[in-house]
């Protein structure tokens, strides 16, 4: 049985421009988007692309992951230390996407 889990999303560094300038959003998604496996970061990224992304999806996703140059943090930890796409989302996780691609 799939239940709903709450995920806290943050978009910054310029990616928020692809989401109607929304910087923070709490979403509810099934705990198993692709049964029987629990929902992973890979599922979440596609879910965001299909449900939240407002424009120019190629600036957010590339293949089945985020575009290189967008940093991802899971509960304030670099997702590269958390298994990246394979990370299994838990209730109340905080996921941050930061673009490094905007001018400095």
């Amino acid at each position: 049985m799939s239940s709903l889990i709450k995920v806290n999303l943050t978009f910054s560094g310029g990616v928020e421009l692809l989401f109607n300038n929304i910087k923070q959003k709490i979403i509810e998604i099934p705990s198993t988007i692709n049964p029987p496996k629990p929902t992973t970061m890979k599922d979440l990224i596609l879910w965001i692309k299909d449900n939240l992304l407002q424009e120019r999806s190629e600036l957010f996703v590339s293949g089945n992951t985020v575009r290189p140059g967008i940093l991802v943090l899971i509960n304030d930890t670099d997702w590269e230390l958390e298994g990246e796409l394979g990370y299994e989302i838990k209730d109340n996780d905080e996921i941050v996407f930061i673009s490094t691609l905007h001018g400095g």
Partner: protein
Amino acid sequence: MVRLCVICNKERAIVKRPKTGQQVCRECFYYVFETEIHNTITDNKLFKQGDKVAIAASGGKDSTVLAYVMKLLNQRYQYGLDLFLLSIDEGITGYRDDSLETVKRNQQQYDLPLKIVSYSELYGWSMDQIVKEVGLKNNCTFCGVFRRQALDRGAVILDVDHIVTGHNADDIAETVLMNILRGDIARLPRCTEICTTGDGSIRRSKPFKYTYEKEIVMYAYFKKLDYFSTECIYSPNAYRGHVRTFIKDLESIRPSAIIDIIHSGEAFEIKEGVKLPVQGVCKRCGYMSSNELCKACMLLEGLNRGLPKLGIGKNFK
């Protein structure tokens, strides 16, 4: 499963360093990030006691972190530098006016004097006016050429010895590749130099030459630094954009690619006997130039004569 920091072996790791692959905790990340920049500064003897240094500040991530770190290192290691913030107002409504607000906040937060010089006062043209004249095709050329000189002129007004810019390792790797792709032999050796002396005696350097963009953004995130991030409304530089995407793709396969490209650029040698353009000065404004007129004067002349294409593209040479 908790991953421990490979430096202190105590705290939980929060960042994977792209340059080394090390996983480090928050405090150790701050420490290595700041210390590497300090080492870059001292190994290259960028400053001496009493130097007046302007930090080129756009309000974006790189220059915001640069201002923060310069202030911190200056205190921690007693460089004895007199620091200033120097900003250029290109006159782009809805972009630069917003980012300048960020710089003004930085001025308060870091307690550094700020000088803003505008294209309008220096050249008599704002970018908004230039775009009206030339359209959206070559506007980035104007902006880039004018900005470089504007920083030098601002530095003269502030009477500083040195300008530091937030160019990071990713930017420099990009420039190396762009110069190779364009076959720009004259610029290739110069673009990896950490410190150059431009007009007069004002030195210009890049303390972030070996600092990865990922770490700069992570540092700003964890330190909650206040920076501005919006794309310029007059379309980003397309050519650089392609190279940028390429570099980011390389980085995602092999993170050391960025530093490797910089090292390749540094190791590049020009065969003996190859003629390079001689660096002279512009006969109109005295700024360094390899032609009779520098590019900025050429572009300005075009604008003022109503021939904005003058000085753009192949006809220039």
